[in-house]
């Protein structure tokens, strides 16, 4: 059996090399994604952990606001507490160094030096840790930005406070996501922030002993944590002492942080698994067509083997071994290349991935196993074919007409697979369940089904395609048609492998483009926003109101709030939070020109004025059918779970976009995709909202947005110690569009890689076809066919495959995008228009055609160089 397998491989080294190259590229892609994801996850996890600290648990405000520092002393009196340390963070502090005349915006971490290093170890590159008031340790980014060194004195803008640099620390992981940081004493930070008696967090270390055994529980003690193991000792502590905390503060165990980390990890794992699945499907199809072609070519050899007594099992097993060997060899060569490429990407992005390069062995092993399994599965059908070779028939070696029923089977099975996902969506009420079936079964079945459908499409369209192509290339139509129709399965499945890349391109740019243009760009945002992390004082409000370039303003305070029984997105990945936007609702409605989906302004305002009523975003109506009169339960900060009546359902105003853009309440990445709009009174009563931190603004027609905002920034900066940002909706839209397009471009690179892999399948098919029909091509040359005509014939054959791939690939891309739209509607409540990006379809199709022809070109050139006698001698 091994002898047969090695003979299979060594007998046609060129074609073996093509197949191995295709599998190698597939492995490179899988390993690259696995390792890059692993590195990214590690940096993300380290970043989250570094932000979370090493304490057993901590105390924070429910909406991440400041709270009274007196609580720290109270915590320290609890017997089980070994250490407790207060922290205050102040973002947006403008630091200046007069020596270099440079400045930088930083986040100031106010800590208690004697305790804090236990919770947040700091790696010092130079100098020492802080010991006294008005001392500071700056991180590497601050050092670079200010060109600072140990001993320098830093000045806070608009303040008299000076900080002396005593040490320089390492940059924390994923630095690009954070402001540069400065560590100083708690007292100094309170002075800088202007809040002498406030904290943002209390880190707690419990004493050892007591009920110290670790156990695992599925139900966390505190809200927000959805899963994970956590210490029962911590849980017991929380249960025992949480009543002592003010209602607007909570104990937060590490489980909550881990839940946040797990959610991020889950998303990236999903992406990795999808990529691996698609790459493996592509690999399997390439091996199926490659080995099937080889079996057909070697029919006489196989017949002779059967004649001399080789058992069917040996012949079949040799095929499986061949497929496995090709896959294994591809995996062996591809794995180090994939790792090397991932390392290259890491070195180009060290600043972002600052926690180091991660080997991600489990991911690599998964990629290798998936490749080998794909190879073995791909070899199954050729193995079955090989075992069914009947000696006498095969020795006659006549071309057989492909059986029509085989094409019908491909069509029927293909349609069943393709319709699997739409039927699932139609029949399943629970959109989340449908989502988890979609990944991987639905998506896998869809790709597989379309690959099979390629065979039927090829047969159906062959008359038309060959007529047109023959005319364009000036070749006999009958020759082209018969060449293609001689092996419709091989041609069809090769088209199937080729179409995957185009399908991914079409899906990415259709769904991405529709989200961008059909949803995001239709959001009626106010002209501009101002955000002040410390809130807007009456003085600041007056300056804004008096600005002649503004026609209308509305002050808002938006905080993430937990919902009960209502969530958006995939429950196991997206936490159940919504954005509560408190404002003068009347003013808000006036300035936003909002769209009403249920209810009307007059009755909504009337009901809202009575209290405990909200307007909700359209996603509530679309995803959960909640309209006027329905009740939504929010976990308030002061009075536990409270029901709020829905007074109206309104369209998007981009508030969640602005909140995300300014990073409001994003400490643990609990992003909300939904919004409820309530009154300032309800905000104060239930969520301790004191003052707004976001201003929505309408600009006068003749006003220049950038100049107006810059003017306001300059006037307001001296009046706040926190971060102050002002951006126009034009700028915000531009930024988000740029990020979206960048993401889509990165995703497109995966699609193009898939195309490249598949083009090796095309090359393999063309080489096999030429080899199988060498004598016939010799006869054609002998009876007066030009070598150019032969070349154009093969090119025409390749074009047929490529065009079928373009047609079916576009259809598949459209289906994936449509399914994506359905999930967006049912899971997240997003609806948007639908448009096919014809430019992407055309460009993508052009790339498919060029790659296919490029793959076939070397074989075509070799054929054209051969003399007729060389082709005729192939029979010998």
């Amino acid at each position: 059996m091994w002898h047969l397998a090695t003979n299979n491989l060594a007998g046609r080294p060129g074609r073996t090399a093509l197949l191995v190259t295709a599998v190698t590229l597939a492995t490179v892609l899988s390993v690259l994604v696995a390792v890059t994801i692993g590195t990214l996850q590690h940096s993300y996890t380290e970043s989250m952990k570094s932000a979370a600290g090493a304490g057993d648990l901590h105390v924070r405000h429910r909406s991440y606001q400041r709270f009274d520092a007196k609580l720290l002393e109270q915590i320290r009196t609890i017997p089980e507490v070994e250490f407790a340390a207060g922290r205050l963070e102040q973002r947006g502090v403008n630091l200046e160094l007069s020596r270099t005349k440079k400045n930088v915006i930083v986040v100031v971490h106010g800590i208690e030096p004697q305790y804090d290093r236990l919770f947040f170890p700091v790696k010092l590159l130079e100098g020492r840790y802080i010991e006294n008031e008005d001392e500071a340790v700056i991180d590497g980014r601050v050092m670079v930005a200010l060109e600072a060194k140990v001993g320098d004195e830093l000045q806070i803008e608009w303040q008299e406070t000076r900080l002396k640099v005593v040490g320089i620390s390492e940059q924390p992981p994923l630095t690009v996501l954070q402001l540069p940081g400065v560590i100083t004493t708690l007292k100094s930070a309170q002075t800088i922030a202007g809040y002498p008696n406030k904290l943002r967090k209390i880190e707690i270390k419990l004493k050892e002993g007591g009920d110290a055994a670790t156990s695992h529980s599925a139900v966390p003690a505190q809200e927000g944590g959805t899963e994970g193991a956590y210490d029962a000792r911590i849980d017991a502590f929380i249960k025992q002492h949480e009543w002592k905390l003010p209602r607007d503060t909570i104990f937060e165990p590490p489980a909550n942080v881990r839940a946040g980390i797990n959610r991020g990890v889950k998303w990236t794992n999903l992406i990795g698994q999808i990529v691996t699945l698609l790459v493996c499907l592509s690999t399997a199809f390439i091996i199926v067509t490659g080995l099937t072609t080889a079996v057909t070519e070697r029919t006489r050899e196989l017949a002779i083997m059967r004649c001399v007594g080789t058992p069917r099992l040996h012949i079949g097993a040799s095929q499986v071994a061949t497929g496995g060997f090709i896959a294994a060899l591809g995996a062996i060569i591809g794995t180090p290349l994939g790792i090397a490429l991932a390392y290259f990407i890491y070195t180009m992005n060290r600043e972002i991935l600052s926690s180091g390069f991660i080997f991600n062995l489990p991911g690599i092993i998964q990629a290798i196993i998936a490749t080998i399994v794909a190879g073995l599965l791909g070899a199954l059908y050729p193995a079955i074919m090989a075992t069914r070779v009947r000696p006498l028939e095969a020795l006659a070696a006549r071309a057989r007409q492909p059986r029509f029923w085989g094409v019908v089977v491909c069509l029927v099975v293909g349609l069943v697979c393709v319709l699997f996902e739409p039927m699932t969506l139609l029949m399943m009420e629970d959109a989340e369940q449908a989502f988890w079936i979609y990944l991987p079964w639905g998506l896998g079945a869809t790709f597989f089904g379309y690959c099979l459908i390629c065979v039927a499409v090829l047969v159906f369209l062959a008359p038309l395609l060959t007529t047109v192509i023959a005319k364009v290339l000036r070749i006999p139509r009958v020759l082209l048609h018969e060449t293609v129709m001689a092996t419709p399965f091989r041609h069809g499945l090769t088209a199937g492998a080729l179409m995957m890349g185009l399908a991914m391109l079409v899906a990415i740019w259709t769904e991405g483009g529709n989200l961008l243009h059909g949803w995001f760009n239709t959001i009626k945002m106010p002209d501009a926003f101002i955000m002040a992390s410390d809130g807007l004082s009456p003085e600041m409000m007056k300056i804004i109101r008096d600005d002649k370039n503004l026609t209308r303003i509305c002050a808002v305070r938006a905080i993430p709030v937990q919902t009960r029984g209502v969530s958006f997105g995939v429950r196991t990945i997206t936490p159940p939070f919504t954005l509560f936007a408190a404002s003068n609702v009347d003013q808000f409605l006036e300035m936003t020109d909002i769209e009403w989906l249920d209810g009307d302004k007059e009755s909504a305002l009337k009901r809202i004025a009575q209290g405990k009523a909200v307007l909700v975003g359209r996603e509530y109506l679309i995803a959960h059918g909640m309209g006027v009169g329905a009740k939504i339960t929010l976990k308030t900060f002061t009075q536990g779970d409270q029901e709020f009546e829905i007074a109206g359902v309104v369209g998007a105003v981009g508030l969640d976009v602005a909140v995300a853009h300014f990073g409001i309440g994003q400490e643990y990445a609990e992003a909300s995709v939904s919004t409820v709009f309530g009154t300032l009174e309800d905000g104060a009563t239930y969520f301790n909202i004191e003052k707004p931190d976001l201003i929505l603004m309408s600009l006068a027609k003749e006003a220049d947005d950038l100049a107006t905002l810059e003017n306001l920034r300059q006037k307001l900066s001296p009046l706040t110690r926190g971060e102050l940002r002002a951006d126009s909706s034009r700028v915000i839209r531009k930024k988000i569009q740029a990020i979206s397009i960048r993401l889509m471009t990165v995703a497109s690179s995966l699609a193009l890689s898939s195309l490249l892999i598949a083009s090796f399948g095309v090359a393999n098919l063309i080489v096999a076809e030429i080899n199988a029909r060498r004598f016939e091509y010799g006869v054609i040359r002998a009876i007066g066919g030009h070598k150019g005509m032969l070349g154009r014939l093969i090119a025409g054959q390749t074009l047929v495959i490529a065009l079928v791939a373009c047609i079916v690939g576009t259809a598949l891309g459209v289906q994936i995008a449509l399914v994506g739209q359905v999930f967006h509607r049912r899971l997240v409540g997003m609806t948007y228009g639908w448009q096919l990006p014809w430019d992407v379809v055309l460009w993508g199709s052009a790339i498919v055609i060029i790659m296919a022809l490029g793959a076939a070109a070397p074989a075509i050139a070799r054929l054209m160089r051969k003399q007729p006698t060389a082709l005729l001698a192939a029979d010998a």
Partner: protein
Amino acid sequence: MLALEQVHKSYQLGAQKVQALRGLDLRIDKPGFFAVMGRSGSGKSTFLHLAAGLDRPDSGRVIVDGEDLSKLSDAKLTQFRRGRLGIVFQKFNLISTMTAFQNAALPAVIDGKPKAWIDARVNELFSALEIDGRAQHRPDAMSGGEQQRVAIARAMLFKPAVLLADEPTGNLDSANSERLWKLLGTLAQEQKITVVMVTHEPAAAAHCERVFVIADGQNKGHFEVNGLDSIGVASRYQQLGG
């Protein structure tokens, strides 16, 4: 009609250089049915390839129907083969995925002839060769003899001056072989063309009017058949050193 003058041709087979023809001189000046006989490795297939313009000699001249093939470009040679030569191979003559009609019509399709012309000419040939009932059949549904007749029809499509046949009955039984030899002889006579058949079978050569003997890459001479049977042909062939 057909002349090879001092033709030399060698091939590289692995590390070895094989001299297939060593100054071959062979001339046929009139229409008729001729045989070229020789053992395996004598150079007769090389002779046919050169005569058909499928290959070029190392030196010497190959003149077919007044045209010096060695002076023609690849494109002109291709055109020449299509319009003025006919070739019939021993086996796998036909494109396996095309019908008999499509196979026979192929040179005309490549040449861009109108459909009406193609239909008329192919049907005429099929009728003459008694295979009109097989026009829509693929090669795998036809006997060896029928396939060879289709190949002859294709070769005769443009009424060539020379028809070359390389062991055309090598895969046929004796009855079909006999029929094919007679057919070739009739074609030569009725169509006034030169039919040259390369063969190692005395029985085949017995149907020809003249037999050329090639051995060791050289023309060892020729003899007129003049009613000789296969034994007689074999004897004369051996006398000439075949």
